[in-house]
């Protein structure tokens, strides 16, 4: 086929070689992907403004002027203010008792340190706004909003030379953001890790691409192979947003126990559960998710109460590295993550497979 099918308008916009975006919480992964010719967005939703500032400078020092992005979870709805203590007092005794039963049945150890329930991340507007102000001050090349509409900050960002990406799970959200003038839309489907909308990746990407005009669309949700990349471009996307793909790479700071589980897992090892946070979230199965899925279990509470309830289990499992208890968010593409490779190799393998896929469809001539 003529031309390079992987050279898209997203590549031109960002000055990158490959239309592959790594969404990661590990700075080393981000730097490896950026220096390999892709693009990376570092998730900083749960970080303090001071930590974000330090991380931005750390990356900037290692990518030789190449662009990078920072993702914040801008909230889009928040309950009336209440202290953690007030919220804790609202958890029903039945739910406390069920959590305690799980703890005893599986011998879940106590957390080694106090669970920090006061770090609310983007749950409230005050902290999210402070996080955002750092990104504007630091003039990071790309700000990605992982949930709420970034429309209100577009002028301020563009005045500073910052591009703004918005992540959507519904077409009407994309329409609103396109009208506001975001620089790219990440269309995330149900296949994704963590919290997703209920529209599948095939459908949301095609629908948003059809309305986007010249604005690049980035496909997200279940994308872990070059075939996924090729398919996304065929749907009208200009690039892909990948998360689970990088969890088990060599540079990743994810616990080795979780890396090994990722490598062993298939799509059947993931579950779409409300038991962790009270909101539907795709994670690897663990005793906590399985017990709350049983008919005799009480219905999980709404956020943030369920997270308050599960935090002791999660923190206890992680602090004590209990492989039988730990979990991690993982998308449906986890089946294809089967070896622990350097990030740059993962990127190159994906690109090569995508090119082979296009060749297979169109022929080499």
């Amino acid at each position: 086929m003529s031309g390079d099918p992987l050279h898209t308008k997203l590549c031109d916009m960002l000055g990158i070689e490959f239309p592959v975006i790594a969404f990661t919480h590990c700075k080393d992964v981000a730097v490896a992907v950026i220096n390999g010719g892709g693009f990376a967005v570092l998730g900083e939703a749960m970080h303090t403004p001071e930590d974000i500032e330090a991380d931005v400078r750390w990356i900037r020092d290692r990518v030789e002027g190449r662009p990078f992005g920072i993702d914040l979870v801008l909230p889009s709805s928040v309950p009336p203010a209440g202290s953690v203590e007030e919220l804790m007092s609202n958890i029903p005794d039945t739910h406390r008792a069920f959590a305690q039963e799980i703890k005893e049945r599986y011998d879940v150890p106590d957390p080694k340190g106090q669970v920090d329930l006061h770090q609310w991340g983007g749950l409230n507007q005050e902290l999210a706004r402070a996080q955002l102000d750092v990104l504007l001050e630091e003039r990071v090349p790309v700000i990605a909003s992982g949930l709420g509409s970034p429309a209100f900050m577009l002028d301020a960002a563009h005045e500073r030379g910052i591009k703004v990406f918005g992540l959507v799970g519904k077409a009407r959200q994309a329409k609103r953001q396109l009208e506001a003038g975001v620089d790219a839309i990440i269309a995330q489907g149900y296949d994704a890790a963590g919290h997703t909308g209920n529209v599948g990746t095939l459908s949301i990407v095609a629908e948003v691409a059809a309305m986007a005009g010249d604005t690049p669309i980035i496909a997200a949700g279940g994308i872990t192979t070059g075939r996924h990349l090729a398919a996304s471009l065929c749907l009208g996307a200009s690039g892909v947003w990948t998360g689970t793909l990088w969890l088990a790479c060599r540079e990743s700071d994810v616990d080795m126990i979780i890396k090994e589980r990722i490598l062993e897992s298939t799509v059947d090892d993931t579950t779409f559960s409300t038991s962790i946070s009270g909101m539907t979230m795709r994670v690897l199965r663990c005793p906590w998710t399985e017990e709350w899925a049983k008919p005799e279990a009480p219905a999980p509470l709404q956020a943030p109460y369920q997270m308050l309830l599960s935090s002791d289990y999660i923190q206890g499992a992680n602090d004590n590295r209990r492989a039988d208890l730990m979990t991690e968010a993982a998308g449906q593409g986890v089946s294809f993550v089967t070896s622990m490779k350097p990030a740059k190799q993962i990127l190159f393998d994906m690109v090569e497979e995508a090119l082979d896929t296009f060749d297979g469809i169109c022929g080499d001539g």
Partner: protein
Amino acid sequence: MAERTHERVSGFDPDMAGRVAECDGGHAVMGTHFAGREEFTGTLTGEYVDHGDPPWRWYLLGDLTRRPDEYTHDTVWCESGNLFVVDTRDRTD
């Protein structure tokens, strides 16, 4: 490092008061790296708050007719960009 603070301005928008709206809501989930989604339908009270400059506007949605199970509050603050007015007050057809 200087402490980061921003102005918080409350107000009332009579044009929004009484409008039926849907909110494609959600927020970061404490203790995780992830965002959670939650959806609401209700009636706007008209109250708003602007956070910082440029102003980040939030409206208060009450009389909730759709909310996540176990959501215990009577109201929810909704970011204006994720709020969709769905009543027909302004339609002429």
